């Protein structure tokens, strides 16, 4: 009842423009959460976010260990800045995060896209980013149902109770 008074969200379109592990997962969780709730969901990957739908890269996303002041060690202390620069540290930290997420039933990117599309969510890539990074259609995950211009994206995002979220 309360929802109806406030105006209900019926549809969410999530734009993911960054290829960091956490930015991609924020977009995936938001879209999947919408699908789980019976809402329409569209995911639009652009710029570096495109990595999330490039087959060879999608499951190898990393979180930045340089320039990420919120990053902490397992004991809760801040991660020393120089440590983040050592080769292999970023990969190790990213793998630890993936392991933690898996324990909470947050799947790898390809499986997450499986879940979202199984529930009726739709995944799109950005035309400009595809051209810019010279990505071929074959490089993209089979979850991608189209490559859109920004105008086409807005058409898809339209509707009553529709929201656009940028991560």
């Amino acid at each position, binding site marked *: 009842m309360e929802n109806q008074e406030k105006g209900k969200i019926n549809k969410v379109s999530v734009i993911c423009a960054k290829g960091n592990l956490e930015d991609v997962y924020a977009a995936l969780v938001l879209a*999947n959460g919408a699908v*789980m*709730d*019976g809402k329409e969901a569209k995911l639009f990957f652009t710029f570096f976010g495109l990595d999330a739908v490039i087959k060879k890269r999608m499951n190898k996303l990393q979180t930045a260990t340089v320039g990420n002041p919120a990053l902490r060690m397992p004991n809760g202390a801040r991660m020393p800045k120089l440590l983040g620069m050592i080769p292999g540290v970023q990969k190790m930290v990213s793998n630890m995060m993936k392991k933690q997420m898996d324990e*909470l*039933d*947050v799947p790898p990117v390809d499986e997450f896209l499986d*879940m979202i599309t199984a529930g009726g969510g739709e995944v799109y890539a950005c035309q400009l980013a595809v051209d810019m990074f010279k990505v071929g259609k074959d490089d993209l995950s089979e979850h991608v149902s189209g490559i859109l211009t920004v105008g086409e994206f807005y058409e898809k995002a339209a509707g009553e109770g529709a929201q656009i979220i940028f991560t």
Partner: protein
Amino acid sequence: MAQKTLAGKNVEVTDEGYLHDFNEWNEDIAKEIAQEEGIELGDEHFQVLTFLREKYQEGANLTIRKVGKSGITDIKGFYNLFPGGPLKKASKIAGIPKPTSCV
């Protein structure tokens, strides 16, 4: 908390219609809640409901992914069985609390 008569039995439910005590659940109650949600329960539905009740009793965090890996159905099948919010609807029909997971 509200009182509700389900399948001839007086039960306590939350404001959103989830059973307060999952021990009060039975198949007739499930059928009646399902009907309110516009779902007619078949064998596969009941297998999912049993799975969710067992996992809930084990204290597991229930997610769509777990149901997808249960061997009963895949995620697409789960969405087909309980359209428009499978985990929430199935939990309600299974007589267990509203799921708190984000996945």
